[in-house]
């Protein structure tokens, strides 16, 4: 800083300037590194009274780094201002409707935050013995039992950290089971409408992907299925309702066919919200089921995670479940219930550093208990009602590739608008942001051109649905009325406007340091 000058030319950016908060302006928020100024600090630790040895007294010098890692050096005030302003540049369920298909962005009850913050849950080390963590083991057993009742399965592992992890777990269970039958297999069937994690997991499971097409009604093409079913098929992965939001009516026949060739059925539970208390994967004939607690059971998505993807299985697969698993045993003098860890003899092993995303499990349990058996069924009913209302309401405005009753979500297509007016699903998504809603999922499932996948969830009110429908009608109207390309201008009133994704990939800047170089 030039001493005596009338300007304070410190290297740092002004932490107190708020124009990056949309409330006040449109500037970019500086990075924490630009706010950093040598010598500033926010940190403090307990006073311990422990002798203050120097580094060279503690470790061989060649292991010591020459200089501390440069992070940021900011005051607590600037730290708070920076991240509070960033939060003002972020849309969220708490700000408005988030009809992102396949993601079940329902309201996340605040009471679950209180649960996750309980010192008796949040403050427990995962390696503490069962004798000192009976509460946690009991909680986990209660979660497992509830999930088994909801899915109609025999037992579950709570280890998988998310849906994809659950998928891999399920495929490894499939593998272990076939191996135990003495007949390893090599193929897993998935429909062309499947979510990308399914084929990716199949590969990681060491299987070859066999894709079956969907029929005119958006369901698995039974003939195509029959043609690929053979003794080398380890199983099939299905989402039901599928990613088109449609129920696979032939599920019983599919199950019979797959079981007939000795294959197993895997249920991708991402869409479980649609059928809670109505029909259960186990009763449909599935052998392995993963759930996304961050979808169906309302745990917050955290900007992309964490989630939890427990996997429930039928009797015959229980011996293969990952371990250790918590179990309830009756023992002690007056036959008191106690909980302990056990590992199934044929266990495939472990799928998490510890016991799973446990605090997410606790949130989900609270959600399940508040709703109860009766309430969960109503969740499914209203989720499906909302989606069908949207479908019906917009069927004149957008085309509905599979115009039949849908479940919890509906996939519309804007292909006509594209053909006639050059307006893409992407443009519609961006334009919708200006109307105060998050966009639907676009371009998924892949089998629908210009797909707009809308999942309102049960927590959005009829008034919100109406406003969403009106916004989508308005946009369709504009697509027809306004000059081609004008919608490519959207969004206008967001913290940043259309983002240049191509450039991001072309000149990769994954860190602040890379920027300096680029």
């Amino acid at each position, binding site marked *: 800083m030039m001493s005596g000058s009338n300007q304070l030319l410190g290297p740092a950016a002004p932490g107190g300037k708020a124009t990056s908060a949309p409330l006040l302006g449109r500037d970019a928020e500086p990075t924490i590194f630009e706010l950093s100024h040598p010598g500033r600090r926010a940190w403090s630790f307990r006073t311990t009274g422990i002798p203050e040895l120097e580094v060279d007294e503690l470790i061989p010098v060649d292991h010591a780094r020459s200089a501390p890692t440069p992070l940021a050096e900011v005051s607590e005030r600037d730290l708070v201002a920076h991240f509070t302003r960033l939060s003002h540049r972020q849309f*969220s369920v708490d700000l408005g409707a988030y009809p992102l298909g396949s*993601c079940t962005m329902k309201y996340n009850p605040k009471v679950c935050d209180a649960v996750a913050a309980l010192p008796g849950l949040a*403050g427990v080390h995962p390696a503490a013995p069962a004798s000192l963590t009976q509460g946690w083991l009991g909680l986990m057993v209660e979660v497992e039992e509830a999930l088994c009742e909801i899915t109609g399965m025999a037992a579950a592992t709570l280890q998988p950290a998310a849906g994809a992890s659950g998928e891999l777990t399920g495929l490894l269970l499939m593998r272990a089971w076939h191996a135990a039958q003495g007949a390893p297999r090599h193929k897993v069937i998935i429909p062309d409408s499947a979510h990308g994690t399914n084929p990716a997991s199949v590969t990681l499971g060491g299987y070859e992907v066999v894709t079956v097409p969907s029929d005119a009604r958006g369901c698995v093409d039974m003939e195509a299925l029959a043609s690929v079913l053979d003794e080398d098929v380890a199983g099939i992965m299905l989402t039901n309702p599928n990613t088109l939001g449609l129920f696979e009516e032939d599920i019983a026949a599919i199950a019979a066919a797959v079981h007939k060739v000795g294959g197993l059925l895997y249920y991708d539970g991402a869409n479980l919200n649609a059928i809670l208390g109505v029909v259960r994967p186990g009763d449909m004939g599935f052998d392995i089921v993963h759930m996304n607690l961050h979808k169906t059971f309302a745990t917050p998505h955290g900007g992309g995670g964490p989630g939890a993807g427990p996997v429930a299985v039928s009797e015959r697969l229980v011996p293969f479940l990952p371990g250790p698993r918590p179990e309830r045993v009756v023992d002690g003098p007056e036959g008191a219930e106690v909980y302990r860890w056990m590992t199934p003899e044929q266990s495939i092993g472990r799928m998490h550093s510890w016991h799973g*995303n446990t605090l997410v499990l606790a949130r989900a349990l609270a959600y399940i208990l508040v709703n109860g058996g009766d309430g969960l069924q109503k969740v499914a009913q209203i989720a499906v009602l909302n989606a069908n209302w949207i479908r019906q309401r917009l069927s004149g405005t957008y085309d509905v590739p599979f115009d039949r009753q849908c479940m919890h979500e509906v996939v519309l297509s804007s292909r006509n608008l594209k053909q006639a007016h050059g307006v893409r699903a992407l443009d519609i998504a961006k334009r919708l942001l200006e109307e105060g809603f998050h966009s639907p999922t676009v371009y998924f499932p892949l089998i629908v051109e210009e797909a707009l996948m809308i999942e309102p969830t049960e927590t959005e009110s009829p008034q919100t649905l109406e406003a969403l429908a009106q916004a989508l009608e308005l946009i369709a109207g504009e697509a027809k009325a306004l000059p081609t390309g004008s919608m490519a201008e959207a969004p206008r009133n967001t913290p940043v406007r259309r983002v240049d*994704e191509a450039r991001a990939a072309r000149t990769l800047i994954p860190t602040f340091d890379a920027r300096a170089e680029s």
Partner: protein
Amino acid sequence: MGTYIPHTEDEITSMLDFLGLATIDELFAEVPAALKLQRGLELADGAGEPDVLAHLDDFADRNPARTDRLLCFAGGGAYDHEIPAVTKALAGRSEFMTSYTPYQPEVAQGVLQAVFEFQTMIARLFGLPVANASLYDGASATVEAVNLGVAAAGLNTVWVSEGVHPHWRQMLATCAAGTGHRLRTVKLVNGVTVWPDTDLTGEDRPGVLLVGYPNYLGCLEDIPAARSICDRAGAMLVVATDPVSLGVLKSPGEWGADVVVGEGQVFGTALGFGGPYLGLFACAQSQVRRLPGRLVGETVDLDDRRAYVTTLRAREQDIRREKATSNVCTNQTLMAVTAAIQLAWLGTAGLADLALRCARATRYTRDALLAIDGVEPYATAPVFREFAVRTRLPADTLVERLADAGFLAGIPLGNEFDDGDHGLLIAVTERRTRDEIDAYVTAFAKAVA
């Protein structure tokens, strides 16, 4: 009775009406009647939030191990570090909590920029140019790193040091059943890995070396030794690290690692009985197209303003499907944002001080424990912020006894390690005061006497 559904009966009726349906069940007409659940779910009926909160608090009350009842000397990848009110307040902002993967960057700059800052901090800390937006936890990050290494080397034999967290090795083995990797566990001697000097051209030729730094026993491994084997074998060096230690230790990247993974719980995330935690992952520039999971990059918007977006998406499952580098979709973004906040709170000097404080507390505790007769070092190699001891007593018994005295003594090494049943792994963080440690040591002495 509790519900989060806004709809009144009138509204439901009129919506059904609009759909031309008489009852709500007709919405499920396409579900074969035979399959439908003929009864209600056998779960308790809905309860009010206060009752449910009380029920969950009962569980919480039955966890005597909670840190507000037992002073924590356990580590092993999960540490009782300071989490300041400011980190909780900022990471708890509902905009971060209740949003999802930033598919629409125009309204997700908050999460995107926070993750960009997180990536920068991890890359710097690990000494590598690229870090991803998070993986599930240390174990899954390790699995992904090995997958990357095998793909990069084109060799599927993996030499795994016994010093890597046993749980991480277990998950590696579990997943190897699918990927077909051939895992060879390499033993520790006195706490450090002694790599076999087999012929590196034969069928045991490794595509990946995996080693901990510091390792599970807290010991400082000889990374250059591993590096030179990799160079000779054309293998990739994957280092599983304890990120807090890197406040003082030389970064694995600087030591020559190709991929570095670690457990990020230490940066502002609660112990929480093991999850959700934070898988850290960084790699060399050359591997960026094999990077698992999301990556945030900087770019500009229509008006040429700085903006952030997830990039190199072609690696990911939703686009690449069966050829994707990984199947991860939902990750641990909130913990990554938390880590960015915590690391900014710590800052350059704070992280160094944190590591130093842990090392000092560890040294102080270790010296005191080893002065107790009947307590020997489990390993002799230099340690940083964690260490293992051997006593006459089965470690499980020792833990039970010290619990009665008010301490979570540590983690029994268990059958994963030679004579592990009598080995106890002990971690001492910056939160432990001298008085607390002295009391622990006294109780320890009594327990083993």
